């Protein structure tokens, strides 16, 4: 069975073999643990890879995303950073006033994908290939408006907010349609919706404003015979039924910020949990034994001949022995 077949079998709950895996890394890991990172990557090769963007036109950005200093992304969002190997935080909004939405340029360069190159990459890959999409209407709105103003907008609902979301969504739809026309296996959506204890906005508002956008993204993937993957940090239990209802295939979520066992009881067999293992506490401060126990718990709760992918992030503060323990534990026999 190839890696791609293994992932597909997992997403379709007919995998009687090993659990597929994928390690996410922040540049921080390579800077601080280069040898350990290489060893982990050699021992546990990824079954899921992300296709390079293969852009014909370069993105108009300035600075380095993962370096200290200022990084301006292709939308003009300004990230300030103090530490090498991680991304910074937006400090100054791009859109101070609503009339500016009309003048907001979209990064058309992101649509200059060489689809022939993408198809060749996919044909040569044994792994399951994700397109280089990262559609995040909520986060991008925050970056453009500034987090505080965006939250106030969500409460007050100025007309400009709807215009902004429509503009962002139209761009993402175009980008996802483009990637869906290639041979990639899956498309990715990504918005962090959870705080420590629950959703950042009310589930009702989420359902009204954002769920329809995600429904469109999932529909694009499925219409092209591809799978829809999503990343969302924080405690998002309140919207898991909605994500299942719109047909999401795989969700990368902070399982250990939620009730893993309860999630298993309610949702195992309905959605594939694409990791993760607690990067807030366990990976930096736990022991390999703690990590193994957590993985076993997640496996008991979620695995139904599929429905789980061994994934974690080797990010800031994580101990390499704990990252290795994640994959060792997922490889244990039932």
């Amino acid at each position, binding site marked *: 069975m190839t890696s791609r077949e293994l992932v597909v079998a997992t997403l379709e709950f007919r995998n009687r073999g090993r659990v597929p895996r994928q390690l996410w890394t922040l540049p921080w890991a390579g800077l601080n643990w280069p040898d350990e990172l290489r060893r982990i990557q050699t021992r546990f090769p990824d079954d899921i890879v992300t296709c390079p963007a293969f852009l014909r036109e370069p993105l108009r950005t300035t600075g380095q995303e993962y370096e200290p200093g200022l990084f301006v992304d292709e939308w003009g969002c300004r990230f300030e*950073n103090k*530490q090498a190997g991680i991304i*910074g*935080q937006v400090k100054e909004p791009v859109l101070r006033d609503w009339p500016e939405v009309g003048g907001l340029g979209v990064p058309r360069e992101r649509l200059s994908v060489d689809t022939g190159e993408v198809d060749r990459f996919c044909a040569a890959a044994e792994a399951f290939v994700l397109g280089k999409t990262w559609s995040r209407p909520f986060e991008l709105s925050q970056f453009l408006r500034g987090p505080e103003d965006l939250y*106030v907008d969500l409460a007050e609902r100025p007309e400009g907010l709807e215009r902004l979301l429509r503009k962002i969504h139209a761009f993402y739809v175009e980008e996802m349609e483009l990637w869906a026309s290639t041979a990639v296996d899956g498309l990715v959506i990504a918005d962090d919706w959870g705080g420590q204890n629950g959703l950042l906005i009310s589930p009702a508002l989420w359902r009204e404003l954002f769920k329809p956008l995600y429904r469109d993204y999932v529909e694009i993937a499925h219409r092209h015979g591809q799978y829809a993957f999503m990343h969302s940090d924080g405690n998002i239990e309140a919207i898991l039924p909605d994500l299942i209802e719109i047909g999401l295939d795989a969700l990368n979520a902070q399982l250990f910020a939620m009730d893993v066992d309860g999630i298993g009881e309610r949702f195992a067999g309905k959605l594939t949990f694409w990791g993760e293992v607690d990067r*807030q506490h366990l990976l930096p*401060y736990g022991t390999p034994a703690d990590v193994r126990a957590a993985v076993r718990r997640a496996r008991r709760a979620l695995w139904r001949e599929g429905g789980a992918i061994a994934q974690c992030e080797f990010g800031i503060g994580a101990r390499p022995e704990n990252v290795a323990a994640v994959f060792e534990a997922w490889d244990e026999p039932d």
Partner: protein
Amino acid sequence: MLKEMQDALIAGKKAEVESLVDRALAAGTPAATILNEGLIPGMERLGVQFKANEVFIPEVLVAARAMNAGLAKLEPHLAKAGVKPRGIVVIGTVKGDLHDIGKNLVAMMLRGNGYKIVDLGVDVAPEKYLEAAKANGAGVIALSALLTTTMVQMKAVIEAVEKAGLGIPVVIGGAPVTRDYADQIRAHGYAPDAASAVEEIGRLIAA
């Protein structure tokens, strides 16, 4: 009218809060009564609802803005009457860390609950907390960190406070921070979320 003011505050109706504060003042209600029986209980009710996931960040922010508008009306009257804030809190994100969304939310909720906030911003060195705490007569120092690599700075602040013999309690919070870590570095308080931070600081100030 004070109950009406609470309801308007919770609903984030800034203009209505301002108008109700004006009317209450015109009716001869002391500014301290308006603050302590109108605005602050409104923010406290909101904090309880926030903790219970009945309201969310957008509702808290618009309520905080309405609270600030009401406070701006009251402040000259409070100053004239010699009414002091519930406490003074020096707050900031620790050295090496530029993240401030959580810290700002805590500061906003504290302000809405009647505390004077001295916000030092981000990337704050231990000595800055000390200087600001001394200069402002702070009752609590509140530290925020988002990163596992920067939260170690919290220990440095606590040690600096201990060394200076200030006797000011330090409360810590942020995504990677745990109660265990707070205990380990001898923090006096720990808050896993913004609503808990208000409660914890209230407990420390009252102690």
